[in-house]
């Protein structure tokens, strides 16, 4: 198949637009990182300048690392995010498989019910969730956060994955059944590998809100041992004084793990987003 050639002019405009978008998207990130390496005066006097020999300072990072158990916070965030993604994907994929593969009474209704969570924010249930966690003795545990985030991630996971699973050929699954694969084997060995791009897409969309969330850590797990990075960084933002060096350093550090996870998923993600569009 020969690809349609784009005129150089059009392709130039496309690249210009994409480059512009990239700059806009990266600007705040780059600015945060640059300023995290400057001293306080330089941050306010020349916020857009690169750190120079005079303005270079690691005071933000030293403050962050001295203050509290920052590595512990990191670990907490990482555990909560990774475990929640894992469960959201696992249970989401299982529910999606059932919805797309089996005909049973109320299939449609069940699908709608499970997808409604996309439209209704889970924060509306905060009071009930807190009461539940208190009753279950889960306050100030990472388990509480993992449970909530798994629930929060499920609707989108089920919605996207069930759409993708519908596209997996029936013949393939039937061939597996004739060859004696159990329904579990068909799910894990035939269907999951085929929807991997969709799983990566869901993983990224689930990961970012979890990593950035301040609300539930503050309410369910504000204890020192269970603080997440986002919550940990809050100590530098006071009502009257904000330690900008420390805030910027903490944010810069917090970007790193997300970046790593994103790079892991991104190859699959791009395939997931363009699936169907590019055959």
């Amino acid at each position: 198949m020969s690809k349609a050639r784009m005129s150089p002019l059009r392709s130039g405009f496309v690249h210009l637009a994409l480059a512009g978008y990239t700059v806009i998207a990266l600007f705040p990130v780059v600015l945060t990182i640059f300023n995290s390496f400057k001293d306080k005066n330089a941050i306010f006097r020349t916020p857009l300048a690169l750190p120079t020999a005079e303005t270079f300072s690691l005071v933000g990072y030293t403050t962050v690392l001295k203050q509290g158990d920052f590595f512990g916070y990191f670990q907490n965030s990482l555990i909560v995010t990774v475990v929640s993604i894992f469960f959201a994907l696992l249970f989401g994929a299982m529910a999606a498989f059932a919805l797309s593969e089996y005909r049973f009474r109320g299939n449609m209704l069940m699908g709608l019910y499970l997808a409604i969570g996309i439209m209704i924010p889970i924060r509306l249930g905060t009071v009930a969730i807190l009461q539940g966690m208190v009753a279950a003795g889960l306050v100030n545990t990472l388990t509480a956060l993992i449970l909530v985030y798994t629930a929060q991630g499920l609707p989108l996971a089920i919605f996207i994955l069930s759409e993708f699973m519908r596209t997996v050929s029936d013949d393939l699954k039937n061939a597996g059944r004739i060859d004696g694969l159990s329904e579990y084997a068909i799910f894990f060995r035939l269907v999951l590998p085929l929807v991997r791009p969709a799983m990566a897409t869901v993983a990224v969309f689930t990961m970012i809100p979890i990593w950035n969330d301040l609300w539930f850590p503050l309410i369910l797990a504000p204890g020192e041992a269970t603080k997440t990075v986002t919550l940990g960084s809050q100590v530098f933002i006071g009502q009257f004084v904000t330690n900008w060096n420390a805030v910027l350093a903490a944010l810069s550090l917090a970007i790193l793990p997300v970046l790593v996870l994103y790079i892991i998923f991104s190859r699959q993600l791009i395939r997931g987003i363009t699936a169907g569009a590019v055959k």
Partner: protein
Amino acid sequence: MCSIGTKGICDKEKAHPVGSLHLKSIRKAFGTHEVLKGIDLEVKDGEFVIFVGPSGCGKSTLLRVIAGLEDASSGSVQIDGEEMISTPPAKRGIAMVFQSYALYPHLTVKDNMGLGLKQMGAPKAEVEAKVGKASAMLSLEPYLARRPAELSGGQRQRVAIGRAIVREPKLFLFDEPLSNLDAALRVNTRLEIARLHRSLKATMIYVTHDQVEAMTLADKIVVLNAGQIEQIGSPMELYNRPANTFVAGFIGSPQMNFVEAGRLGDDEAKTIGIRPEHITLSRESGDWTGKVIHVEHLGADTILYLETDVTGLLTVRLFGEHRYAVDDVVYATPDRARLHRFGADDRVIA
């Protein structure tokens, strides 16, 4: 003779298992939509049976019911005299070849073919031997280490057929296995399947849209229409003695001409069927006078469409090349001995 010591040799000589199939009043409904309306069918050991019928008439559904991939709403499926209705597909002793090949994309050709046996718990050496034999049969040896994505369509379908052979099923089920292949490959693969049936002597059930496939491969053709069996018979029986207008119109290409019986002076029948190849043409004289409205030159055949005074539109098939042109006036004469007469209920009148 088979003694304990010669087991290996005996295994090789053991004939491929064959099985009979017995369907009794199979019904299947999706919600309120009834797709199969009471199917009774008997397939003997080693028979090659073909299901034909228009799109959506329930051929695939029937095949899936036989395989156990779809539960029948009622009725019974017996393979080798054993009731199978609650037996899972893997335990029915069947193998199926799908139109879309349905190969496992992440497994090599060899693993694709061996998976079924492995799942049954067969020892590695046996899997290896059977895969080797099947791939030799289908000339797939050079591709054993490849994945399906690295094969052509014809090769993929051969792998799918190989996967079925390896299971040594009592019953082969094919659901339009050739319809994704181009014309030349289709002929080759058709021959391959015919050869396979001869050498394995296995019982095979085969769904197709293609008349040529049906006529050339089948011992027995089952014509389905709207979830019911219209007629069962050998290809020539269906061609020479169609039981009703549906079968008469479905088997044979180009389609049989149907003429109102009254126009031909037959008051007993309602419709008269005349196959296009059972009409002779002449420029001088004949029963019906007609004008040529279209001509198709196929080399071996010439197909003419006439508008005649008695029958209206009439398709005529002549063998060889003929120099008729549009608007020529011709005379058509049917072969009286080969007319088919159908009554008011569309059934044939003897």
